[in-house]
């Protein structure tokens, strides 16, 4: 029973981490129809912002605060320079953002070197959960993820911005005809998505080794979570992340992390093929 509880805690931890990365991704995908392959690198930039702040003598918390702002700014610039030119060419957005991803990753290698760096863990305390010590910082990450989920849902379902945004998702032309500035909305969406990725990178940095490859490890599970859940719904991403993260944790416990990845990715592919509109899509249709 205790072991089950720890397993559930590990699973929630991984699930919430995936959600943290996937939220920005699904907002950009759902609203702008852009597959952002550079999302992993936005995550990376968030983590390196903390590294920069710490090496300049600042505290971790300052880095955590600055990371979403900085990466959001990068998002605005890249949207203006690159993304807006390829909106109307759907598959090309994948390529353009893939080029961006190589560029950003290599820029990080040039500035910080390819070796992995570490970020000080700001909270070193542990709490006892069913007799085993559990790092408080992991609980903090889960809290941040829950806060991000709440913020995103509030933003999309309780504010005027959210109403406009959902209008654009439903019918871009009609929304534009009704006087909504879709151009401004796109820019804000991309910046918001990028900022979320930056926040995710910053908050995860203390428990990961910060190196230029760290973004990719989360990108694929996040994409699969979105597709398994159903790209059309925010709630779908939560379900998808729960399925992917939960299955991965259980499989890793039963066998090994390698087998878990192979099994979960394969399962996800089958699920995407059987439910192209995702779990949420299949569920809401009934």
């Amino acid at each position, binding site marked *: 029973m205790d072991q089950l509880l720890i397993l559930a805690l590990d699973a929630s931890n991984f699930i919430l981490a995936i959600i943290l990365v996937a939220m920005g991704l699904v907002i950009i995908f759902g609203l702008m129809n852009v*597959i952002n392959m550079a999302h992993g690198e936005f995550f990376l930039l968030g983590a390196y912002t903390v590294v920069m702040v710490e090496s300049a003598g600042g505290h971790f918390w300052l880095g955590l605060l600055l990371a979403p702002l900085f990466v959001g700014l990068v998002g605005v610039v890249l949207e203006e320079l*690159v993304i807006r*030119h*390829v909106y109307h*060419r*759907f*598959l*090309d957005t*994948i*390529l*353009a953002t*893939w*080029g*961006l*991803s*190589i*560029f*950003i*990753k*290599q*820029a990080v*290698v*040039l500035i910080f070197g390819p070796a992995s760096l570490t970020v000080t863990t700001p909270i070193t305390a542990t709490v006892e959960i069913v007799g085993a010590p559990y790092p408080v910082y992991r609980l903090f990450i889960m809290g941040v993820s829950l806060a991000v989920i709440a913020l995103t849902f509030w933003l999309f379902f309780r504010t005027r911005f959210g109403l406009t945004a959902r209008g654009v998702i439903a019918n871009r032309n009609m929304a534009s005809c009704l006087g909504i500035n879709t151009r401004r909305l796109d820019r804000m969406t991309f910046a918001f998505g990028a900022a979320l990725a930056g926040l995710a990178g910053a908050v995860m940095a203390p428990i990961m080794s910060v190196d230029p490859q760290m973004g*990719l490890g989360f990108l*694929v599970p996040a*994409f*699969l979570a979105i*597709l398994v859940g159903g790209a059309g719904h925010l709630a779908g991403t939560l379900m998808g992340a729960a399925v992917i993260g939960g299955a991965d944790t259980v499989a890793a416990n039963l066998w090994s992390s*390698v087998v878990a*990845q*192979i099994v979960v*990715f*394969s399962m*996800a*592919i089958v699920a*995407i*093929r059987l439910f*192209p509109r995702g779990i949420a899509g299949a569920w809401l249709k009934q």
Partner: protein
Amino acid sequence: MTAWSQASLRHAAPALAVGTVLLLAPLQLGGYQTGQLAQYLTYGIFAMSLALVWGQGGLLCFGQAVFFGIGAYAMSVTTLDMLPGIGTLGSTWLGLVAAIALPALFANLLGRFLFYGRGLQGAYFGIVTLSIAVIAERIAVNWKWIGGLNGLMNVPPLNLGLTGDGYEIWGNLPVYYVTLAVAALVYAGLQALIGSRYGTVIRAVRDAEERTGYFGYDTAGVKLTVFTLGAALAGLAGALFVTQFYFASPPLIGFTLSTEVLIWVALGGRGYPLAAFLGAILVKYAEAKLFEFVGAYWLLALGALCVLSVIWFPRGLIGEAIYRFEGWSRATPEQAQ
């Protein structure tokens, strides 16, 4: 010359020019460089396979290296006599058959699963193939029989004998010309396919799948054929590569090479096999030439170039040139009249 042969000559002019340059290239290059160029030719064949799948078929495949890798491993396992029960039959020929058939079979089964029924649309296909590339690399790294992380070493070169003890194609020049001949054959085959009626159907499925379906074409079947054929060609390229490189390892099957080939083809031009072929060769050549001077800035430049090319030259840098040349050579006869 008749008007028709003039037109077809102009049409083939870029390919003939490239072919001539490649035929004469060893005269200028040293032995080592010729060997390198032979390796780039296999990458060129690989790039042409993606140009078929992506440029013609519209299937943005993020896992084309899976088929290249299966081809490379199939060739290695066969010629290293690792297959139980075939005795000394593990020849180059059997290796080639396996290296073409296995990727094609895998692509066919995968395609049957992905294209039929409700089917997967554009970006979904990309992400699914991306995941498959990650899975394939994981499996290759952890599969002891095919060498795991260390891969398979001492893969023999091409051998013309039926049982693996005949004439060996060895040395930079013979290997180069054999590879060039295969590349030319693949190119000619692809051009024939693209120019045929079926080629038009393939592009119709790419541009308007639903409408083509209404005309009575089995659009999923067309996509399946293109995907399978592309995988077979990628497998062939992988097999040729490994007989020159003598070493099959997990990076050949994974994510990194899959995205590399995507960049060669994007920069070269996905619409023309020739452009994709040259894209691969030129990017690899520039990488070898420039890496010692610019080092890590090379990848930075490549990423930036990829972005700029997608924005301003969606046909690719070489593809744009070929496109303009074709437009120019089409326009001349009328202007002359």
